């Protein structure tokens, strides 16, 4: 453990991290958002899932600094009388959870298929890559909208609402596998030509061992780079689906469904129901994208030249 620690402390990665103010700020922001959202039950003043804590008489209260504000609700309340700040914390937790698990699923599927396509080549490779091409051309959002819409229509809204979080993870997770598969395949093809692979083959190691223990570790940096961007994309897709009413239900809102419920009231002047979750969502996605961009610059050996 301590060996890895000293290795990490002396790495170019850490050095470049500490030299870049934008990255330090975005990393701290991300850390802060994740920590406060996952400790939501501890720090949120209200529990938005508990109907006894919600009073319809408190609905549509503007933020504290406005004339009609209520000291109990810092950022005001939504149309159902839920405290915005607490609901947003719980919503961020849902959004981040869906993003992380969907990317986990994508990476498992994509890495396995990409590794197989790159290593075995031949018919399997061309079949998988054609499939990836076709699936990519249909776009994740389109596939997700269609699949979720059909599930909602055939399950009925009641049952669908209970399964929403699971369905979102599955759909976003499965629809995006080509991103990983292509990236992994490309680096596997590059690695396969190197001498160390010939060497382990000559030693007589099994195919599986060569694939997972020798080639896979060398494809990790592109995987890391796309993983960051993919989490941001998954969070955005989830928000879009929830906004269309195909994602998280109103009684268990993610950031997207909060924005959706606020959109109906923006014309009547209740701007805070939409604006605060929207700002939080943009901030969350932006810091992840900034981190991803930076990581691509640092880990991409192609850019070392300049």
């Amino acid at each position: 453990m301590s060996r890895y620690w000293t290795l990490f402390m002396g790495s170019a990665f850490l050095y470049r991290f500490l030299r870049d103010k934008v990255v330090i700020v975005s990393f701290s922001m991300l850390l802060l958002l994740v920590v406060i959202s996952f400790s939501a039950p501890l720090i949120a003043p209200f529990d938005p899932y508990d109907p006894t804590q919600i009073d319809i008489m408190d609905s549509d209260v503007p933020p504290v600094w406005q004339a009609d504000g209520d000291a109990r609700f810092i950022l005001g309340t939504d149309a159902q009388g839920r405290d915005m700040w607490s609901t947003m914390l719980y919503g961020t937790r849902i959004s981040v959870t869906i993003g992380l698990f969907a990317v986990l699923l994508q990476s498992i599927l994509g890495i396995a298929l990409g590794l197989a396509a790159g290593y075995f080549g031949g018919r399997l490779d061309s079949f998988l890559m054609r499939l990836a091409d076709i699936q990519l051309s249909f776009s994740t959002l389109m596939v997700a909208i269609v699949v979720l819409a059909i599930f909602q229509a055939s399950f009925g809204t009641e049952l669908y609402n209970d399964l929403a979080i699971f369905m979102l993870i599955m759909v976003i997770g499965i629809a995006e596998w080509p991103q990983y598969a292509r990236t992994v395949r490309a680096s596997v093809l590059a690695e396969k030509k190197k001498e160390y692979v010939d060497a382990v083959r000559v030693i007589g190691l099994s195919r599986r061992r060569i694939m997972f223990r020798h080639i896979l570790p060398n494809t990790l940096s592109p995987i890391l780079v796309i993983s960051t961007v993919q989490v941001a994309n998954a969070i955005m897709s989830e928000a879009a689906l929830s906004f269309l009413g195909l994602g998280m239900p109103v009684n268990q809102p993610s950031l997207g469904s909060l924005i959706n419920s606020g959109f109906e009231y923006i014309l009547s002047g209740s701007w805070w129901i939409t604006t605060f979750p929207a700002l939080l969502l943009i901030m969350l996605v932006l810091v992840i994208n900034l981190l991803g961009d930076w990581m691509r610059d640092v880990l991409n050996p192609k850019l070392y030249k300049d």
Partner: protein
Amino acid sequence: MIAFLIRRLGQALVVMLIISLLSFSIQDNLGDPLRELVGQSVSEAERQALRDTMGLNDPFAVQYWRFLKKALRGDLGDSYFFKKPALEVILEKLPATLELVFGATLIILFLSFPIGVYCAINPRSWFTKVMMGLSIVGISIPVFLTAIMLIYLFSIQLGWLPSFGRGATTMIWGYETGLLTVDGLRHLILPSIALSSIMLPLFIRLIRSEMMEVLEQDYIRFAWAKGLNRHRIWFLHALKNTLLPVITVGGVQIGTMIAYTILTETVFQWPGMGFLFLEAVNRVDTPLIIAYLIVVGLIFVVTNTLVDLIYGAVNPTVKLAGRQA
């Protein structure tokens, strides 16, 4: 080229078959067509008889074949809600969506190329830095939020532009178009900007990075050494080779664009296919859902095949089938 064409067409056909199979299984599992036709009072025996005459008890393959034959003739069943052929309902709404996509594409083309090329040529200028910063912010804002912000700013606060619908339209060759009236064009502005908002930063970044890579290549250095005019080098020699990856990515993005029309149309209540599709889902209007899937699938397949063919024609190094050594 012919072999390449045939192979691409064959692939397009397979994809369309898969889409039709999926659509058919949706129809098979979603809702009971009998319930839409007859009331409560019809007895079970009569229902069975009706099922037999309608062919609902036939094997899956037989029913699918029948569905396919009808679909090829353009008959996808009647919409439960509109009581009209579903395909007709969808095609009525198609021009609205196409106009939206057209508006957004114009914005993307006319802004992304100048900005992307400028940023590649002048990587250290302040404008480039501002643009790169803005583009990452742009990528991070979901389309529906951009749409809401546009409505809030330009319709509610400033009152400059209308926030929903298509406005005044005129009929031309049997299709409704909003492109010929001032009111229709005014209605098109905000939705088009919203739809282009996520693609535009993506394309600016893509064009910039591709162009920067091209500018590093030997043939560009040689052109400089030869003393060619810099405008000639930038806009003729370098830009030409930047186009190739842009075409490929553009083809892939068409799918994304259609998906985003659903979001944009929902926010702006734009009477297009996407809006119709969501309504159909809420009403469990199965024939309409299927018609949408097939029309959109067809649009994807046709554009992707075209993009591939254009790519094959533009890029002489692309490996055409049958010519491999």
